């Protein structure tokens, strides 16, 4: 479980990293658990169904985030934060949100794939 400490590190919008990398590291945490203890143990902590749901929800969240750009009429994937604040820091907030969503999406997705493969033993 200490492995999960690593994902926080990989998570950044100002440092090398970002959503995808963070997500994959999280997933590898899960995978390590599977390899070490078997699929049953991993599933006890990360039930298949909720991973599946999380992944789907994250996908929808991404689309919604993108659409929010349209609603505020700056076009798809536009940056709604730019409208609200004027200082530079919150503007990267959009990137942060997107990264977060992507991270969850990727993490749950990759974990799902591996759990699925191991399950059918």
């Amino acid at each position, binding site marked *: 479980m200490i492995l999960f400490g690593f994902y926080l590190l990989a998570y950044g919008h100002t440092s090398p990293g970002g959503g995808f990398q963070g997500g994959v590291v999280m997933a590898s945490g899960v995978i390590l658990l599977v390899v070490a203890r078997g699929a049953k143990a991993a599933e006890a902590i990360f039930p298949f169904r909720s991973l599946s*749901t999380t992944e*789907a*929800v994250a*996908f*929808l969240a991404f*689309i919604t985030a993108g*659409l929010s*750009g*349209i609603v505020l*009429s*700056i*076009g*798809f*994937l*536009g*940056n709604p934060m730019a409208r609200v604040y004027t200082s530079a820091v919150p503007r990267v907030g959009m990137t942060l949100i997107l990264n977060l969503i992507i991270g969850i999406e990727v993490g749950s997705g990759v974990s799902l794939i591996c759990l699925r493969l191991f399950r059918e033993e």
Partner: protein
Amino acid sequence: MTDGGLVWILLAPLIGASVALLGKLFPGASKVARPLAAASLTAPVFILISLAGRVLRGEVIRYSLGGWPQPMGIALTMDGIAWVSAAITAVIALAVVLYSLGRERYSSEFFFFFLMMVTGMFGVAVTGDLFTMFVFFEIIAVTIYVLIAWEGTVTGLAASFKYLILSSTGILFFLLGIFLVYRETGILSISLLGEGPAGTDTAVMRLALASLCVGIGVRTAFIPFHTWLPEAHAYAPHPISAILSGAMIKVSFFAMVRVIMLFKGEYLYPMLTWIGAITALTAVVSALAQTDVKRLLAYHSISQLGYILAVFAAGSSIALTASFFHAANHALFKSLLFLTVGAAVRFSGERNLYRMGRLGREMPVFAVAFFAGALSISGIPPFNGFASKAFIVSGMEGSIAYPLLWITSFLTVASFIKLGRIYLPGAATSEIGNSEIQGLKRTPGALETISVSLLTLACVATGVFGTRTADFLNRLLYGTPLSVVPDLFSVKALLKTLPVAVLGIAAYKLVLTETGQRLSQKVKAMAPPLRVVLVLFLAGLLAFAAAAY
């Protein structure tokens, strides 16, 4: 935002996919989710109609995701080529998704992948820069690998795997091409490239174009890249076969057209004409030898694509129009054929055309639709195949490769006479009709019938109004009205189809004594052809790049 309409072409299927995903999350809602998701495909049709006027006037519509300025944003463009590409996708996707909502009861996940694939196809059609083209190509690819293997049969899995290997290798070359372009010019945006850097004629740029074409060529499936297509199209679920043959290979072809025209690749034309003609002929010979109905149709897809490629590369003044016209018609009649033949396979439980029996009386509407498609592909008036073949004839005026295409024509007729037996009226065996596979009735339902009828009507309409359609295309692509107008319905033109028909019947009789069947029985092992395939094409294009100095 007036230009915002463009992005909705992409967003509509994407949102549709999300709706389908919701159907998976909440199984109770899936009855509603699936049709809703499918309905999202009507939006692109309307958007395209509304944009048509502006594109006809020669305007190139641009849109940038998120409002980021060029060259940083992800850009979308809409011009003549993009319009045709997107229109074909929209129509075929709509017809096929309607069919999929029918008796077969595909799950929400199926629709999710289907709609993602359609998003990818629209993306390739309207993309404004090369890297986005790569991304959308891969979206299509990944969803297709899943969809081909959807039914989980051994043949489907194997076909999907082979396609995966070949296609992924190809896309690596596409990336290589992008790399070379970026290294030389520093930009990847299509509009900016068009303004200057793309025309520069250096060895690196030629190599780049060659690489890009190899990458797209695998998806378009002309010789020597076609080995994946027969199995992938034959063993996919029926609606997927339809949209693969109907839309996907066209979209890839149009992307290649755009790339070649962008990089001023006219020196490739002579070679491409020959590749097209040879593809057409060899594929139809293989097709004639098949007994599996879907493989027969799949080989014909390759063959017709040969026509499309050959006339495009002929370089005459109506080359683009003839090529795109035939592409559009092929999309219509090939998806029609796959859907009707698929229904027949489903009904009889057999894939071998000699064992399928004569289903004409069981499914009369489908029989009519099938014959409409068969007559279209054979180039018989008044169907659309006749119109576009007439345009191809005049587009290839004076080309030495033309005789190959002519031979292909009557061999096409022959193979459809051979295939036609499955829909001839025969003794009604109503027990099969009322029985069920896995609890679902075997006869096609209302939605399938509507879908198939719409496609039939379209085939007839674009045939009867052939000249008008071609004129429309000409304006879209060249900006000028049609100048060369082949006589479509004069007696002379109609008489020209007679020898083709007669020779076709003769060839069919010949083919009945089947030794050609042995040819297709030869197992094509993966490794040697792959090596030969890639090396040949690379060598060919490289040689061309060098020789054109």
